[in-house]
């Protein structure tokens, strides 16, 4: 469903990860871990097609990936139903009922999104994944600002998605209560160009002694 081969990616022109490789089969979830700044978000953005890899390949049909990041694309002046309905229409779906029910938003459907709490907005953002009808969920810290009950709710939604033959690639620090393989990104940290890492356009310009260049 998703195969990543020898992938290297950069943020702001600086390589952050290299030689990342994993596969994701239907019904499978992969949790990405690693310290802040290791490149989890960069990897997810690359997989979602928002930026180009420095090296390596991503084998997945681009029309199978649903991406959810820190910002949920929620319009404050539209109601919950209007927000969800828009994304459903973009993806050629029409029924937002199951997504509303799964994320416990039934009582809020007619409320303008401006009046939602941070956790409720997050639930709305996650409900969007369900109306895309896409099998591969690429999630960046999906549980930010969710309370424990909502995390459990979301865990069940991911489990149902996996049981339905979908798969998920999740960067998170907490336990979602689902069966998932864990990939620690620490060993994939990009090496400096001098030690065999990938040279970028930047490196030629400043020479190898980046530390001394401005002294």
């Amino acid at each position, binding site marked *: 469903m998703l195969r990543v081969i020898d992938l290297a990616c950069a943020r702001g022109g600086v390589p952050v990860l290299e030689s990342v490789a994993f596969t994701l089969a239907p019904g499978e979830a992969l949790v990405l871990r690693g310290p802040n700044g290791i490149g989890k978000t960069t990897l997810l953005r690359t997989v979602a097609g928002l930026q180009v890899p420095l090296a390596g390949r991503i084998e997945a049909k*681009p029309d199978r990936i649903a991406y959810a990041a820190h910002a949920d694309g929620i319009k404050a002046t539209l109601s919950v139903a209007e927000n969800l309905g*828009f994304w459903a229409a973009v993806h050629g779906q029409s029924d937002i009922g199951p997504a509303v029910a799964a994320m416990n938003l039934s009582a809020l459907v007619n409320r303008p999104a401006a009046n939602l709490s941070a956790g409720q907005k997050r639930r709305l953002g996650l409900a969007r994944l369900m109306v895309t009808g896409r099998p591969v969920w690429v999630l960046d810290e999906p549980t930010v600002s969710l309370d424990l009950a909502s995390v459990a709710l979301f865990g069940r939604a991911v489990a149902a998605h996996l049981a339905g033959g979908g798969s998920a690639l999740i960067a998170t620090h907490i336990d979602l209560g689902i069966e998932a393989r864990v990939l620690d990104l620490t060993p994939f940290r990009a090496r400096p160009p001098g030690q065999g890492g990938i040279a970028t356009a930047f490196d030629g310009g400043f020479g190898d002694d980046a530390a001394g260049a401005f002294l």
Partner: protein
Amino acid sequence: MIALLIRDLKLAFRSGGGFGLGLAFFLLVAVLVPLGVGPQGGTLARIAPGILWIGALLACLLSLDRIFALDFEDGTLEILIPSPLPLEGAVAVKALAHWLTTGLPLAVAAPVLAVLLHLPASGLPWLVASLAIGTPALSMIGAFGAALTVGVKRGGLLLSLLVLPLYVPSLIFGAEVVRRGAEGMAVGTPLAFLAAITLGSAASLPFAAAAALRMSLRQG
């Protein structure tokens, strides 16, 4: 596509959406110029085509940065790029929504305001026609500029500097249509040029703007 158009129109009309901003600005220009220039009908009539077109152009410019900036800030653009909607189409639709909420109301309101500027009655139909044909280019070129500057905080100044030179041909031919119409001369040539600018930008700029958006969103 239609869903995006409807959503953008809804957002524009609801509170804080910015609909009416351009129109109000246009109104202010048309009301203030006679006060500033003085009541001589001859002078006003002579400068009316230019003033009306400059007013329309600046009114368009006023709301350009909203085309993508809001969608960029709340993450909508990042979600739209992997979505089944072609980004080129999304750009074209957003430019269309901008025109429907800015350019079209200007074209409709212009004849009323033209009276304040003593524009001869023979020029009124051509004023509406030139604005209706010319302002879509302003929205499309503006969408391109907005796409280029979307990642720039407070990019409004940069956007204006980028876009204003590209607006000049529309301004020249648009005002010329009105001037010739008011004086009873043939308007075919400038009108054809105006239409060509609109069609050319509608055909090519969605691709340029989509490419610019992809670049702006790439953090690598």
